[in-house]
């Protein structure tokens, strides 16, 4: 399809004079696609292809015959929707989703609330030691999730935790943090500790981008620092809040390393505590990659629907407000 004429220097040389000739215009139109090729290729190879393979796997299954020993006792066959009906009727997957919902119900509001609060405080004029504080709040984000979970896990275990030692000395009750309701708080705490700093930076950066004239105008109108924060700053960083909320939802749905790391420390975290843990368990513990692929596809779809649903709802709201 590429005619040699398109690439002749003759055609290119003519372009600057007046209207570009049709081939040159066509070439200009083709240029963006050319630039897209590397990205598209990488996307295809390392994103679309593996996803496609996972989807393909999810429609297949292994069938064993007899005792299943020796060569030829196992064959891969078409399963249709069997893996999907299996996953959707598996109460463990649903229970895992409910557990994660409960966990997310704590993590997302607390983490974003704190991030916003810290960002506003850092942005206020009277703050001292701002760079140090900013770094101190951000630092936990640099600690890998597994390390953070291990660290907190040690602090949660009554027999080795300094907190429990102090509680014991003071004669105060010692809650079991790795069981029942407190377990959700314990897990959420790790996520909040690790994630607040990142979200704070995102919101803080947005705050710094607000032009000083806006504040000046607000002050002239008689607004105090609190009013400025509530009526100027928060509405103006709304897009950042939407973004951080969006990231937080996805991170919550994908929670894996914290419960996996705490699992050996307690009887309360099962191998299928979160949906991703169930996928991992089925694929690598029980060796059923087909069921795991189906579950992964379902989780991906739910994540997609939830996060983009939220984005659309948020943008509709912004448009409505703009129209008003």
């Amino acid at each position: 399809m590429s005619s040699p004429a398109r690439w002749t220097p003759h055609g290119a040389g003519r372009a600057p004079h007046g209207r570009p000739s049709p081939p040159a215009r066509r070439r200009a139109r083709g240029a963006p696609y050319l630039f897209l090729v590397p990205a598209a290729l990488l996307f295809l190879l390392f994103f679309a292809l593996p996803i496609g393979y996972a989807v393909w796997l999810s429609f297949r299954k292994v069938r064993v015959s007899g005792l299943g020993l020796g060569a030829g006792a196992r064959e891969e066959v078409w399963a249709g929707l069997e893996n999907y009906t299996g996953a959707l009727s598996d109460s463990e997957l649903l229970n895992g989703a409910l557990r994660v919902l409960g966990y997310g119900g704590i993590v997302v509001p607390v983490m974003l609330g704190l991030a916003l609060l810290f960002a506003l405080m850092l942005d206020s004029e009277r703050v001292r030691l701002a760079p140090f504080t900013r770094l101190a709040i951000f630092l936990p984000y640099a600690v890998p999730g597994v390390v953070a979970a291990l660290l907190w896990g040690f602090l949660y275990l009554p027999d080795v935790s300094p907190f429990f030692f102090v509680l014991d000395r003071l004669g105060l009750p010692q809650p079991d943090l790795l069981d029942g309701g407190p377990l959700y708080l314990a897990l959420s705490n790790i996520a909040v500790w690790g994630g607040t700093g990142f979200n704070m930076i995102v919101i803080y950066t947005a705050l710094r981008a607000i032009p000083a004239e806006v504040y000046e105008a607000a002050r002239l109108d008689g607004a105090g620092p609190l009013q400025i924060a509530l009526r100027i700053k928060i509405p103006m960083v709304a897009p950042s809040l939407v973004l951080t909320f969006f990231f937080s939802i996805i991170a919550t749905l994908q929670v894996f390393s914290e419960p996996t790391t705490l699992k050996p420390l307690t009887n309360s975290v099962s191998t299928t505590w979160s949906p991703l843990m169930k996928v991992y368990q089925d694929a690598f513990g029980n060796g059923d990659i087909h069921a795991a692929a189906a579950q992964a596809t379902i989780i991906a779809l739910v994540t997609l629907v939830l996060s983009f649903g939220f984005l659309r709802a948020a943008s509709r709201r912004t448009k409505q407000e703009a129209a008003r």
Partner: protein
Amino acid sequence: MPYTKHRRLVGTAVAVTLGASALAACGSSSDDDGEARSGPVSLTYWTWTPGMDKVVDLWNKGPGKKEQITVTVKKQASGDTLVTKILTAHKAGKAPDLVQAEYQALPTLVSNDALADIGDAVGDAKSRFAEGVWQQTTLGTDAVYAVPQDIGPMMFYYREDLFKEYGLTVPATWDEFAETARKLKKAAPDKDLTTFSANDSGLFAGLAQQAGARWWTTSGDRWKVGIDDEATKKVAEFWGGLVAEGAVDNQPMYTPAWNKALNTGKQIAWVSAVWAPGTLTTAAPDTKGKWAMAPLPQWTGGESSTGSWGGSSTAVTTDSANKDAAAKFAAWLNTDGEALNALAKESGIYPASTSAQLSGAFTNPPEYFANQPDFYDKAADIAKTTAPSAWGPNVNVAYTTFKDAFGAAAKNKSDFTAALDAMQRDTVADLKKQGFGVAE
């Protein structure tokens, strides 16, 4: 013994099935067998045993050099993780020549056609091992799928000083064990004899094995799952009862809290296996020299039987282009005196080979048990009493359900038999789902 007869029947049944498939496989595999090779051979070996590279160096500089067989060690994660990795590699036809595999993983690997029958090359090695150990590598058939490397006969470990302090005697039966736990609770309410931990399925499997459980057996071309058999029920009820009445703790092992409990004498005994000295050295360094080892308590007084917890073998994969060379190395590694001595020294394993259990490497007790000079003599005697085991093709599923169901039951101090039922149900359901023949 009715057991032997049954086992032989099973063996024949499996042998027939395997014979048929072996015939089918002959055409393809005989071409790439090692015999026709000429020139040097290099093999890859996946193992998690620490210090294995040093042992393999002995081969590469000694017998391997003579035979022009060079082995390269690729260090791996242990246990189930490696099984998954082997199966994935096998799917691509790229599994290494040699792999380390726990005994209970062998049926899973064989059922995926990942392990080669190396009976012709290593058949002579049989006499070096206890029958119960060797039988695990044949799956009761005429084939040999691996050479046993190390074993984990179970034993009872206790704090000698604290037992004396509280006036406790070493329990010879499980009834006495329960009494000991209660007596300790009365004398020192904040202490526990031990804990029932649900985070290592191998412990429970070993205890059931000691009681005579047969979790997977075959009849014809069907698997029979007996996880909820009488023997296992007895074990589950026993521990469930102790947890429910609070006579033993219900928190998992291998946590920082558990280490501390052992190190400070909050828990004063541990049902474990021959490798316990290594674990105790890191978990309870301050109590070195205060522990002693005794045989596992028995279900009936006067009997002597134990289960096994851990242990692994060396297997050759069907993907290997030099199966004979690989089998030669596997046999050398696990039967040669020099190799076994090095394995004991560099890797701290307890050898499956019966002669090695009494070799020079095991005349002195482990450093942690310096107070018990006859540690390894006792261990070798106990190893001889290991009850036979019966593994099936989905041990992983049973183990996962164990962790979740017994973990929840231990936490809630609820009925352990219900957890056992769940384990049986999930294991059978998984076999059926995969299409295995299942006898009800």
